[in-house]
């Protein structure tokens, strides 16, 4: 019995699926943000597992490209969380709700 790439990718896919469900089904804007963070996290997991297991990326002097990519994903996720939460505070201040079903200003 051994743990290989398929196992890690399966876990990554499960996390991504749960993240999509949360991001689409939840009514609160902050819960939707949590789902998006879960999806980014699942992608990080698959980056690292490919970086470790895959022979397709066996660059001799740069074995850590996947790790560098994950560092950038972390950066973008942090920036995105800060701006999204600032937007939700702003919407709350104008409308006293962060309920996505009731934020329909842009509806035609």
């Amino acid at each position: 019995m051994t743990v290989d790439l398929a196992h890690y990718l399966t876990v990554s896919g499960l996390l991504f699926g749960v993240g999509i469900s949360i991001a689409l089904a939840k009514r609160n804007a902050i819960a939707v943000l949590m789902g998006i963070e879960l999806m980014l996290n699942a992608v990080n997991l698959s980056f690292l597992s490919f970086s470790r297991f895959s022979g397709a990326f066996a660059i001799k002097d740069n074995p850590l490209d996947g790790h560098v990519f994950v560092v950038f994903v972390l950066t973008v996720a942090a920036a995105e969380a800060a701006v999204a939460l600032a937007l939700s505070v702003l919407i709350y201040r104008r409308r006293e709700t962060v309920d996505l079903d009731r934020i329909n200003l842009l509806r035609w």
Partner: protein
Amino acid sequence: MESLGIIVAFYLLSAIAVGGAIGVFLASDLIRALAFLVLSFIATAGLFLTLSGDFIAIAQILIYAGAIPVLIVFAVMLAPLAGRNNGNGLYLVPGLALGAAVAVTVAFVAVDVEWNELSGALLAERDFATTAGAIGDALVGRYVLAFEIASVLLLAALIGAIVLVREDEAT
């Protein structure tokens, strides 16, 4: 990886990570959902450790399990009238269906495809004692342009967040 410790750690951490994610979905209170989210992130950091990614695991704990939950708690506490109900919206059934479809598809592809996988001695070459130095070298060497762009992105996000929530005194 054949070592028994790695196998036990993988299954335990995966169960905690996926269970925590499902807990985020099922929790009725937003703060409880956040606690489940942190649990899931910490378990994922453990999975990163089993993949020999020590720097990424620590960065994950610092950023995902430390900084972002603090931001989310601030956002929840600053919106007291909005309520902490973690209820479902209009798209519950399509959301669940799409999530299940994506999970099943990825799992099927992951199991079905013959990956070009390393094994034995080649795989053991990737048992890094530490990765922080090599990642730092890559960041200021080969990926220095992306590194600079990331710093500009962080600055823009910082200024944008401040400008967005600033109280406008003029009007």
